[in-house]
């Protein structure tokens, strides 16, 4: 089912505007993630779609039907809460069949359905336990099962993995992806973890302060971010920002001209370059020289933090340029290096409002 959000505005009683006019079209079967920092409005938006909050303005359409005034229980959607929100006094079986029984399905049929769903999630041995006796991962799967059993036309997930430890999180992430591939139900997913967003989604909507900054597939978000905020939020370790200028359609940094052309009048710009797109060589071989201040080992990748030499006011933030180095290439603190960029991978943003400039 398609989901449409049109001009949604949500204001809270204390005056804060959580959602400032959001427009979003989600295709049938699409997995779309709302990504952003705490307080950006992503959870509020999700709750608006669920019907747990009502918008001051705008409308919500699910499957072509205007559901803005429709009770949450009648929207035929299912939600997985961050805290799972399992009914604590009911067994797993009762938790899962609750919605079916309320709709009038006889116990035998509902239990049978629950059995099938439980088996597909690997929790059929837990059916008669109560939530208190389950581990985090098991509760999460019960919450999923409760959502799945209704065959909803849309899934809403509110940071369902954030309460799990790393290993479990990765496992469940894969599970969710697998389930989506199999059943292709429209899913709206909320998270502040950009890895999750990139891994799971067909498209990502990056939000900040109640607005959507960019909606695109993960690769585009990563490689062609629309604003400095998006560039910074996505990608770990985070992108490097350098101060530069745009002169006659060509970017310059540290006095050197780069092979980077952009449309637009002369202005100061912020250049974004990711650590993996930086090439280190001997001093003098790059745009500028620097010394390695310290090194972080990430496994197969090592990040060298470089302090630029003899180039003042180069960095827009932080004091170091982070460069990714293969673990097999020896690099250590104190080394002097020359810093070069892969020109085709540089992003150029207006230094004032942070929006990306295109060719």
């Amino acid at each position, binding site marked *: 089912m398609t989901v449409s959000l049109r001009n949604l505005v949500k204001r809270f009683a204390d005056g804060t505007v959580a959602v400032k006019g959001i427009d979003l079209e989600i295709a049938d079967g699409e997995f779309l993630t709302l990504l952003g920092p705490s307080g950006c409005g992503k959870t509020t938006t999700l709750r608006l779609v669920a019907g*747990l909050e009502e918008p001051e303005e705008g409308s919500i359409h699910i499957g072509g039907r205007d559901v803005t005034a429709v009770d949450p*229980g009648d929207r035929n959607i299912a939600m997985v809460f961050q805290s799972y*929100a399992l009914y604590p006094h009911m067994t797993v079986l009762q938790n899962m069949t609750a919605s079916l029984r309320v709709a009038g399905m006889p116990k035998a049929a509902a239990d049978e359905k629950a059995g099938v769903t439980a088996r597909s999630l690997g929790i059929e041995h837990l059916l008669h336990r109560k939530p208190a006796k389950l581990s985090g991962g098991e509760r999460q799967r019960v919450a999923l099962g409760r959502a799945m059993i209704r065959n909803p036309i849309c899934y809403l997930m509110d940071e369902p993995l954030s309460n799990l430890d790393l290993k479990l999180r990765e496992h469940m992430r894969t599970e969710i992806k697998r389930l989506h591939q199999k059943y292709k139900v429209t899913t709206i997913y909320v998270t502040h973890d950009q890895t999750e967003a990139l891994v799971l989604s067909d498209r990502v909507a990056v939000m900040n302060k109640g607005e959507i900054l960019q909606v695109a597939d993960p690769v585009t978000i990563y490689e062609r971010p629309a604003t400095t905020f998006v560039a910074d939020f996505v990608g770990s370790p985070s992108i490097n920002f350098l101060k530069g200028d745009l002169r006659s359609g060509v970017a310059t940094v540290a006095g050197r001209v780069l092979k980077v052309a952009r449309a637009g009048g002369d202005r100061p710009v912020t250049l974004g370059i990711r650590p993996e797109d930086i090439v280190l060589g001997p001093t003098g071989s790059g745009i500028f020289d620097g010394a390695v201040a310290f090194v972080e080992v990430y496994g197969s990748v090592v990040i060298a933090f470089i302090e630029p030499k003899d180039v003042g006011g180069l960095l827009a933030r932080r004091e170091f340029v982070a460069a990714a180095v293969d673990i097999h290439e020896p690099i250590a603190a104190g080394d002097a290096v020359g810093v070069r960029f892969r020109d085709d991978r540089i992003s150029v943003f207006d230094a004032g409002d942070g929006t990306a400039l295109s060719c």
Partner: protein
Amino acid sequence: MKRRSINSRAMNVLAFAVVIVWLAPVAWVMLTSIKPTMLINSAEPTFFFFTPTTEHYIEVFTRFRFGDVIVNSLITVGVSTLIVMILAFPAAYAVSRMGLMSGDFWALTVLSLRFMPGVVVVLPYFKMANSVGLLDTHLALIVVYVAFGLPFAVWILRGFLLDLPREVEEAGRLDGFGWLRILFFLVLPMAAPGIAVTAIFTFVFSWNEYLFALFLTLQKVTTIPVALQKTIDVYNVLWGSLSAGAAIQLLPMIAVVFLLQKHIARGLALGAVK
């Protein structure tokens, strides 16, 4: 979890000592209830070395018909507590879920009715009960205890309900539960401990109640506090019977407090913080 307290052996001993001394008068009452009458009234108080007697307890049940009295107390206080809980649970839920602004207002309004001086309403109650012929009936007291127990019950229960996770209720809404179902099949089970505590409080409140029992009952329906009063006449206090009666009145209180001591204090504090 370590917690800072003035932890030393001396303090522990002091704590025990303080409590023991504090309770000495109560212990005195308990002792008196099993002391032979002669020893009670003698000039020199005796503390330990006597043979206990059950004569006062027997007298209390025969001469003062305490059996009936206990039943009266149980009926009036028990039924009124039940009614209070039935009314207070939905009300506390409404007040706790109505959002901060208006919910607070209603909570305070309800609470302020608890502050009513008894004397203001005692007389109207008397006249009202009289005019409908309900004087000296269980119903009159039940009605009054409901009126006075309700505000506090709503206040305490509200504190407990505010603590419950809203997300479970929201999950219910998404599952298609109507508000009635949510209230009775989701919130009620989750709030069970809070409900138990509130019921205890309400019960205790009315168990010792004296003023209204005095005004609204005469012969047929006497509750324990009023009956105790009858052990006193102009010249003499029947200490033995009084103490025995007081001990009996204290029994359910002790049991209840011991079982739920932690929850009780937490309930009051919760009602405070919200």
